[in-house]
Structure formats: structure tokens, C-alpha cells
């Protein structure tokens, strides 16, 4: 069944119990992203360590479909506490998988539950949903590191 490959149980779990949700006061930069095709929105904050090399926290508030909500939750789990260099590797791995139309098996050591989104990559209309939070993170972390 294709629907189950899109909505894997891992995704539905992240959707129902979003990790790290809510905006927190400690942050250096914020990014607001909108999916213009559906109106879904996310505001995401990046909190870096003083040396600007480690991501201490990612906090976010968002409205959107199960895919966009779950991907924000997975993002939080994968990048909280990692270095910016590591974040870039994680981001690139996830991004490449999402652009692969479902052909590229991603490295689970890097993106964790993010591998469950490979089914989403087969639905072009939903790729944007899965990338919304990640684009916000790239933007906010980039600004915070300046």
C-alpha cells in the first residue's frame, strides 16, 4: 500500500507527539517560512553556544499537515546538540533524499527517523511539506552563526 509507505508509523508518531515544540526564549536568530501553496507556516528559533559552533536548541511553533509537523519534530531530535558542521551533513543528507523522488536511501546514522520520509519523496506535491522546517532551520542557524 502506497499510503502506508507515505505515512509510516514513525511519521504519524512524530506528528502526534511532536518533540521540542514551542518557542523558547533563548535564541540568537529566528526564521519564518511559509508554504505558499497551502499556507502552512513555521517560526523557528536557533540557539547556539557562545562559540557559535554548537546548536544548543531548536525551538519552533508551526501549523501544517502531518508531514510538515512530523518533519519539524524529527529535525529537532536530530540537530539539538550537534555542531554546525554536523548539521550541514545532516541537512544535506535529508535534502538529497527528499529531492531523489524516493530513489536515494539515506544514512540513518545521520538523519535518524528522517529516513522514514523516503516515501514522501515519491509525492512531489508533499516534498515542500517535508522541507519547510528544515529550510527554516538552515536559515535561522545561518543567521545565528554570523
Amino acid at each position, binding site marked *: *500500500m502506497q499510503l502506508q509507505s507515505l*505515512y509510516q508509523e514513525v511519521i504519524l508518531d512524530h506528528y502526534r507527539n511532536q518533540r521540542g515544540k514551542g518557542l523558547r526564549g533563548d535564541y540568537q536568530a529566528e526564521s519564518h517560512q511559509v508554504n505558499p501553496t*497551502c*499556507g502552512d507556516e513555521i517560526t523557528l528559533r536557533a540557539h547556539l553556544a557562545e562559540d557559535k559552533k554548537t546548536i544548543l536548541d531548536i525551538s519552533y511553533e508551526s501549523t501544517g499537515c*502531518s508531514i510538515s509537523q512530523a518533519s519539524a519534530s524529527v529535525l529537532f531530535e536530530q540537530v539539538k546538540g550537534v555542531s554546525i558542521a554536523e548539521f550541514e551533513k545532516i541537512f544535506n543528507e535529508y535534502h538529497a533524499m527528499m529531492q531523489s523522488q524516493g530513489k536515494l536511501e539515506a544514512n540513518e546514522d545521520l538523519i535518524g527517523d528522517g529516513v522514514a520520509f523516503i516515501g514522501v519523496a515519491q509525492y512531489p506535491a*508533499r516534498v515542500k511539506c517535508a522541507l519547510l522546517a528544515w529550510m527554516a532551520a538552515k536559515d535561522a542557524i545561518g543567521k545565528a552563526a554570523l
Partner: protein
Amino acid sequence: MTLISHKIALDVMSIRRDFPILEVKMRNNKDLVYLDSAATSQKPNSVLQAEARFYEQVNSGVHRGAHYLAELATDQYETARAKVANFVGAKPEQLVITKNATESLNLLAYAFATQNSSLLLKPGDEILVTEMEHHANLVPWQQVAEKTGAKLRWIPITPAGELDLSNISELINKKTKVISFTHMSNVLGTITPVAQIASLAKSVGAKVFLDACQSVPHMSVDFATLNVDAIVFSAHKMLGPLGVGMLVATEELLDEMPPFLTGGSMIEMVSMDKSTFAKAPKKFEAGTPNAAGIVATAAAVDYLNKIGMNNIQAHEEHLTEYLLAGLAQMPGVQVFAPNLIERGSPVSFAVAGVHPHDVGQVLDDDGIAIRVGHHCAWPLMKKLNVTATSRVSTYLYNEQSEIDAFLTSLERVRSFFGVK
């Protein structure tokens, strides 16, 4: 589900055979249930053949060249214009052919924001739209307001999904120069009180424009008696091809409006430093037109006339009533504006606890095509306090059994996402 049985006015089975796309299989080899005609309608064979026949038999530049093919093409182009104009109760010289309804609205708006146009607005003038416009009938007017200093105002909507006319005598006042509003909401299906608004508009000398994209394909529309200055609509929502839009306007307005796109075909005389322009409608048809497209649109008009607009409207009314009754029985489903007195076929709804994208995805898995999103009506979404809705819209080729399939699939949405 027990519902009123209905004597079907249309022979839907035979209509369906005219639409080859209805045979195409969806994901998992499912039959297509197409409930997204408010976005774009499907096309019957006669329209597809008319477009192909143009290229096979008469293709050449219209309104130029003295050869036989050019004569045939020009004749077909102008005959098609007359047929489409007649379909909405207009004269051929009142119909400007554009590439879509959005271009038609921009063409209108341009006249109010262009230097040397007698219609140019000034600071203090007012433009009136409604809170339920498609972006195509909102953004161009925002631009006009920004360029001219005119003020953009809007008629709010009531919780029932109708225009709130309680303050209309203040909203339409001596400063009002343009009133541009939808004839039928693409989100809620609301049919607006055109006569009342048009008559108030005329009393203050404002120009009145109607976005008829959702009405012309689904009900009989008569420009001659609407008492408005212009209507816009698009071919692709009325069984015609993509890439053809219409602007129907009074001759007085067309004469007053400056050309929008300029270049070939729209001129009278050209010298190196200046030009004079052809009379409307050619003044607004710069460049090589989509002649095959308008010829195919005329074939769409023939098809609609053969079935009869009143029959089509009655058929859709039945399907909509059946759909609304089915949705009303479903727990956790909220229909936006369920009790409209005058409505068309678009029905928007929400499933509690499930985002519209996810609703659409499960339906898609069952071969059912509906529209999910903001429907290019972002301000209306804000008013409804949602980011998006799910929308079903029907047309002459839809059957009651497809509504049943949709309702069954909607049950699956709720069980799949575990909402009670």
C-alpha cells in the same frame, strides 16, 4: 445512507463517454473520481477534436495574410468569438480574448492606474472588493491602490458565508470608482447579489466588474441584463482548453480603456515615433492569438448548449444537496457555509484533527481528486480561521455514486488518522 431519490435530468452515463480522461486509471489502478472542476474542468472529445482540427485543416495567422488558409482561420476565430459572446448574452465586439481570466482582470485594473487614461484613479478614490475574492481579483486592485493612492476597501462576509451588506450604503459612496467582485465564491460556493450591488454602484457612478469564472461554466449568465460594466471568465473551467480567457465589457468601457499589451495586431497605424490603435476588441489582442484555443472554446459552448445550462445547474444542485446531506451526517466534519440560500457546487469543509493536505492524500489514494489548500483566497482562509480547506466541486459529468465514493473515502481519512 438514505437520501431523497432524484430523477436525473442529465444522461450522465452518455456524457461521461465523451470525456476520455475519465477512463484514466489513478494510483493503485483506481478509477478516477474527479471532484475538482472548480479548479479546471475536463474536456469532451468534441473540444479536443476542434482544437486538433484547427491545426490539421486551417492553421495560419489570423487577421493577416491574404491566402486561403488565413481567411479560413480568421473566419473560424471570429465565428468562435461570436459564439462565445452569444453564450453569455454579449455582442462579439464586446468580447476580448485573453490568455486567462487573471489577464482579463489585470487588463481592467491597468486602465485605472495608467497615466493618460481617462479612468486613472486619484488619492481619495475608492476601490471596493469583497473578503472572498480569489487573489486574481484582489492583488491587481491592491496594485492599483498602491500606484494611485486610491483606497482599497472590501465588503466583509457574514459567519454564514454571505456578503455582509449591512454597511453597504457607506461602503458604496461617491468616492467609489470601481467595484469588482466575485459572482460565485470558488471556496464557499456563495452566489452574490449582483443586481443589488450593481444598482447601488450605478447610483454613485462606479464601474462594476464581475469575476464570473465560477458562474459562467455552471449557470446561465446574461451580460446584457446583469447591469455590470464587465465580466471575466476562463475557457478551461467550462470544458474549453487551457490558455484562453475572456473579458466581456460594454463598448463604452472598452473605448475608454487604454491598450494593455501592445505590439502587433492591435494597431491602426505605426510610425517610428508613435502609433494609433485598432478599435476594441482588437485593441486588446496584441500578438498572435490562441486561435485554436478560442475555436475549441466555441466547441465547448456548443457542448454546454446541447446539454443546456439549466439542466447542468439542476444536476449540480442535486449533487450538492446530496453531498451536503452526506457530510452533515459525518462526525467531525465541518462544512463552511452549509446553509447558503443561493449557491453553486463548490463545497469547502474541514475534518477535525486532520489537515486538508492529509485529507486530500488519503482521498487521492482512493483515486478521488479534490482540491486542498487556500484556493488562492488567503484572506478568506484567515476569516474562516483556517490555513486551508478541503473542497469538492462537481460538474455535469459527475454521478451520485462518485459522491458516495467520496464519502466512503472520507470515512477512511478519519479512521486512518485515528480521529473519532
